[in-house]
């Protein structure tokens, strides 16, 4: 018995150490850092490498490893936590991002270059600083356990002291307690957050080094969900904020586990007891945990419905788009397994698995996207379905019956798991589902009445689809079955989302109280979603079983449940089609690309490492940069496309001619500096308008607002009568707007001809594939493009430069080439920013006649920003003068030239300065001005 206690205490200490790390980050950032154990994983691996491969002393390698842990923590804070926190207050986003971080860090330790030599590691074991042992209560404590016994209390006490008594600790707690009040006290919150993560990184590094000797190898499982679950339970004892309580919780759980092990002699039974104890903690401490962890925001970024321009409304409807997408998707899915590369059984098997992952992704979308609950155990439900299928398949069940029964079991399990979480979003559900993910493979799947503890697993007998439809035997047949099931799930999901049910679910997610006021019972709705999601995930398990032919425990590593969270997130939470796309994007490269990349993660980790790396990157990219995921990106692309079609259709009917450009009341400030203040200008049909003003008057800014590079904070920009102030630059081109930039850099590696052809791409669209294959239509388009480009070059007298690289042109010629590129877009309004800037005097003189000819031939209008007064005087119909973001004068060139305000603020009275064409004054500009008169 005394052995049990000693082992329990030591085990408990390691749990407590991890729990304390969770508490530290929780105190500072109010979220459960699922990546805590992994922050230090790299340190532990590198320490082994230093000592084993490079023969560095442990005592030197250890501090280096801790520093690496600190740097990891700082990097995560700087590039993940800080940007995310400034963007949204959703703690679930942080939770998902931390899963991404943990996957990325785990992928890192698969890289062979960072790992110690595996053979040496196996022979020598994980490096230890000394060789000694002490016998306590019948247990021999070797160096690894001695370090735990000595270091853990020191570390925990040190951290508690740091937080409680040092000023930095107080600043950390203050920032966590009330961030705004902390700022008002002068607390540098950025630095405080960085210090917290640095400490967390150091802590995690030490933890990983202490735990490493007990781990066989460093892989996803060793520091993964099993330890995490226990650490969460321990941290929950103190409501995630108390360090002593977390420590005691760890000790308690360690003792509970060892004592149950002593009684039952069965590790999986002991784990079950531990899980029960953790659930008990959550029930008993519900009030404290609730107070600490109420998530008010939902994890989903809802996409507005697809915006369809009026002009194409009778042509395109959302349902038609969905139909087209579905048909394309189905066609691809049907054709792919018949392609030469996929024609092997192994590849078709992997394709089926992708479909299963897609179904789990859809199940997660229902739960996370629609109901706002995070599940860390969905892959376990696949296991439940798979084992039920294995058990029932010999009894000649038909496939639909199997799917139904497995689905019901999954629904029941997830509903029960979610019961404690019905009142709370986020945390509780995450912990209970993680518990299921850990306990089910360790206990449920090994029970003889349910699963099988045989390493070969339980055999699955192929089942008939229906009485007359036969039994799928080949992988291809199974793939087709899976495709049909997935299609049905998608249809059901899409139908649900647009029905009463879907609306009710979203309403409950967004505002329970208000939903209740409409007569909806939130708890019932949540449980219904849980049941549905569980049903879908478990029925995917039947397909899993059919594909694998045998179901075994090791197919359901709890880490998979964390990994698969990336699928709905990458897809864009809330979109069922997105979930399918997410599954394809994550697992297709894993199965079909990673085998060719053995160089990166080594033979050993190529698939696991690749998948972790890809999933981690995907999770981080989506949470940080594109919360709407693939679905959002697709929707945006569709909107751009529809907008373009609508533009074309609208262009047809003759309308009352509208002025090409009307800018009114545009306001724009950078910080406190107002750059545009009620700026207003107008360009009429066929006009050439100049815009002058001192440096910093806001001329270029105004052009940026007009072209959409910058967005005005208020005011209106109308192109040919259409309001475009909110549109991005690519839309504005559709209105016939072309714009040159102040520094015409163009594309240095392209010739003049190629540059113009590039600009013509938009008018003759040819896919990359068609041009690669030299399809006849592609060649026609190519010929047409070339002819048009030649025409433009002739018009601009550029023909002799056609095959010169643009980087070899003089500045003036390059600007003309730039102009040619603008012309290729057949603009109706050209905006030029200092076309003569940096151009030699001789070349400047080419511009006015050229611009006028372009205006006459194309029938377009021009807006020009220039400092060269003589050129503007000779060219423009009207001129605006800007000072300090305001338009101070407007009129014919002569009027503006004579305007006293313009003279005072811009021109000055020094004629020489005004007429500084080209800067060398070789040719007095006044003569030209006179000539023009």
């Amino acid at each position, binding site marked *: 018995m005394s052995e049990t206690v000693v082992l329990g205490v030591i085990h408990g200490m390691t749990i407590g150490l991890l729990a304390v790390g969770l508490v530290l980050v929780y105190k500072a950032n109010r979220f459960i850092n699922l990546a805590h154990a992994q922050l230090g994983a790299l340190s532990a691996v590198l320490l082994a490498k230093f000592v084993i491969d490079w023969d560095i002393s442990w005592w030197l390698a250890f501090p280096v490893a801790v520093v690496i842990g600190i740097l990891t923590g700082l990097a995560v804070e700087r590039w993940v936590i800080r940007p995310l926190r400034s963007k949204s207050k959703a703690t679930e986003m942080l939770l998902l991002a931390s899963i991404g971080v943990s996957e990325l860090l785990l992928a890192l330790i698969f890289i062979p270059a960072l790992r110690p030599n595996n053979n040496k590691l196996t022979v020598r074991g994980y490096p230890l600083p000394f060789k000694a042992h002490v016998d306590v209560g019948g247990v021999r404590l070797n160096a690894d356990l001695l370090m735990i016994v000595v270091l853990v209390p020191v570390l925990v006490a040190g951290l508690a002291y740091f937080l409680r008594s040092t000023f930095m600790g107080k600043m950390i707690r*203050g920032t966590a307690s009330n961030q705004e009040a902390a*700022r008002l006290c002068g607390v540098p919150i950025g630095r405080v957050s960085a210090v917290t993560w640095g400490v967390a990184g150091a802590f995690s590094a030490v933890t990983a080094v202490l735990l490493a000797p007990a781990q066989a190898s460093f892989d996803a499982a060793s520091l993964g969900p099993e330890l995490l679950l226990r650490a969460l339970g321990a941290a929950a004892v103190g409501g995630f904020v108390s360090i002593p309580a977390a420590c005691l919780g760890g000790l308690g759980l360690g003792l509970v586990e060892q004592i149950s092990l002593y009684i039952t002699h069965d590790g999986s039974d002991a784990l079950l007891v531990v899980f029960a104890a953790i659930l008990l903690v959550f029930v008993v401490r519900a009030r404290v945990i609730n107070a600490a962890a109420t998530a008010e925001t939902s994890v989903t970024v809802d996409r507005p419905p697809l915006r369809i321009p009026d002009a194409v409304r009778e042509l395109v409807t959302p349902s038609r788009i969905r139909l087209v997408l579905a048909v394309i998707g189905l066609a691809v899915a049907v054709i792919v397994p018949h392609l030469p590369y996929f024609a092997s059984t192994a590849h078709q098997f992997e394709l089926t698995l992708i479909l299963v992952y897609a179904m789990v992704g859809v199940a997660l979308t229902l739960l996370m996207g629609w109901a706002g609950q995070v599940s860390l155990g969905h892959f376990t439900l696949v296991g439940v379905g798979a084992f039920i299928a294995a058990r029932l398949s010999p009894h000649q069940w038909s496939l639909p019956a199997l799917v139904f029964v497995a689905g019901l079991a999954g629904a029941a399990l997830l509903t029960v798991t979610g019961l404690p979480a019905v009142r709370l979003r986020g945390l509780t559900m995450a912990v209970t589902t993680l518990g299921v993910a850990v306990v089910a493979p360790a206990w449920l799947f090994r029970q003889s009445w349910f699963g099988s503890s045989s390493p070969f697993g339980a055999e699955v007998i192929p089942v008939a689809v229906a009485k007359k439809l036969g039994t799928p035997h080949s992988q291809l047949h199974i793939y087709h079955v899976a495709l049909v099931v997935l299609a049905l799930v998608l249809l059901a999901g899409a139908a649900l989302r647009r029905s009463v049910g879907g609306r009710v679910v979203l309403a409950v997610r967004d505002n329970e109280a208000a939903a209740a006021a409409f007569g909806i019972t939130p708890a019932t709705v949540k449980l219904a979603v849980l049941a549905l999601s569980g049903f879908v995930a478990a029925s995917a398990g039947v397909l899993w079983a059919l594909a694998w032919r045998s179901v075994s425990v090791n197919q359901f590593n709890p880490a998979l449940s964390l990994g698969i969270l990336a699928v709905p997130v990458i897809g864009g939470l809330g979109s069922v089609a997105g979930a399918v796309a997410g599954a394809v994007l994550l697992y297709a490269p894993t199965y079909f690309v990673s085998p060719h990349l053995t160089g990166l993660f080594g033979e050993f980790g190529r698939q696991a490492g690749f998948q972790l790396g890809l999933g981690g990157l995907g999770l981080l990219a989506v949470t940080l940069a594109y919360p709407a995921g693939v679905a959002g990106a697709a929707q945006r692309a569709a909107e751009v496309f529809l907008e373009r079609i609508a533009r074309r259709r609208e262009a047809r009917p003759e309308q009352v001619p509208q002025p090409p450009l009307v800018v009114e009341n545009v306001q724009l400030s950078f910080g406190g500096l107002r750059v545009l203040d009620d700026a207003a200008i107008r360009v009429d049909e066929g006009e050439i308008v100049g815009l002058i003003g001192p440096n910093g008057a806001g001329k270029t800014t105004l052009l940026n607002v007009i072209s959409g590079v910058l967005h005005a904070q208020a005011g209106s920009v109308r192109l040919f009568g259409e309001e475009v102030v909110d549109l991005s630059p690519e839309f504005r081109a559709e209105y016939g707007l072309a714009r040159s930039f102040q520094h015409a850099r163009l594309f240095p590696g392209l010739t003049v001809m190629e540059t113009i052809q590039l600009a013509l791409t938009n008018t003759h669209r040819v896919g990359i594939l068609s041009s690669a294959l030299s399809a006849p239509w592609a060649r026609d388009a190519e010929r047409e493009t070339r002819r048009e480009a030649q025409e433009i070059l002739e018009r601009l007298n550029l023909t002799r430069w056609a095959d010169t690289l643009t980087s070899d042109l003089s500045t003036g010629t390059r600007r003309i080439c730039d102009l040619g590129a603008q012309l290729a877009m057949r603009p109706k309004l050209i905006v030029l920013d200092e076309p003569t800037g940096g151009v030699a005097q001789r070349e400047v003189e080419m511009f006015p006649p050229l611009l006028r000819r372009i205006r006459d031939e194309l029938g377009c209008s021009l807006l020009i920003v220039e400092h060269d007064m003589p050129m503007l005087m000779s060219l423009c119909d009207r001129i605006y003068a800007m000072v300090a973001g305001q338009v101070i004068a407007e009129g014919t060139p002569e009027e503006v030239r004579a305007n006293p305000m313009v003279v005072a603020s811009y021109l000055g009275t020094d004629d020489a300065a005004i007429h500084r064409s080209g800067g060398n004054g070789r040719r007095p500009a006044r003569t030209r001005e006179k000539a023009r008169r």
Partner: protein
Amino acid sequence: MTTPILEARNIEFSYGRLQVLFGISLAVAPGEALALLGTNGAGKSTLLRVIAGLETPSSGEVLLNGEAVTGAPAETLVGQGLVLIPGGRSVFPDMTVDENLELQALTVRHRADWVRERLDHVFELFPRLRERLRQPAGSLSGGEQQQLALGKAILLEPSVLCIDELSLGLAPIVVHELLEIVRRIKETGIAVLLVEQSLNIACQLCERAVFLEKGAVRFEGRAADLLERDDIARAVFLGGAHEGARR
């Protein structure tokens, strides 16, 4: 006129696309108490947040003692003598009263003697706080929390004290006590910018008042004159009467 201790010039501010403040200007003279009044959603609290550096204005200037501090983050303004008591939650509920005060003294940590002196002064004003030094601030009553907030604020002997909704959610008797203390704070020469919904409270304390409506200044002048402005008084009192009717 002497340089205003705090001045806002043409402040404009938007939350995203929604503009909340439209060119607001106001000035607080040293030692003066200025009331910032207005209906719900007039932009009073937002203006205070802009002044204290919690938000960056889209245009306009904030001057502290004649020096431009526009866009300076809140963390740096404390050291320059500007302290804001935000409305609602302004203490660290999970930390003891002691720790609350200690964090507030962050910027003057090196002057331990001076801090001790100031603490004595704070405890003189709020003897309750000394009794509850070891208690988490979250366990104090609403009035005591406001006392702590005020205590924290004057600990640093700021030159300007901005108070957002002193009376929010407090019993009248508590408000009365607090008002008395704010009056004493003002007498020590600290300028006060007080945001209030209640006209009466403001007029008791402040000589001058600025009245905001829909993000713009509608009235500026002697607080007493404000009471005579029927249109404005009605805007406020009607709101009050409305509430009264609901009770």
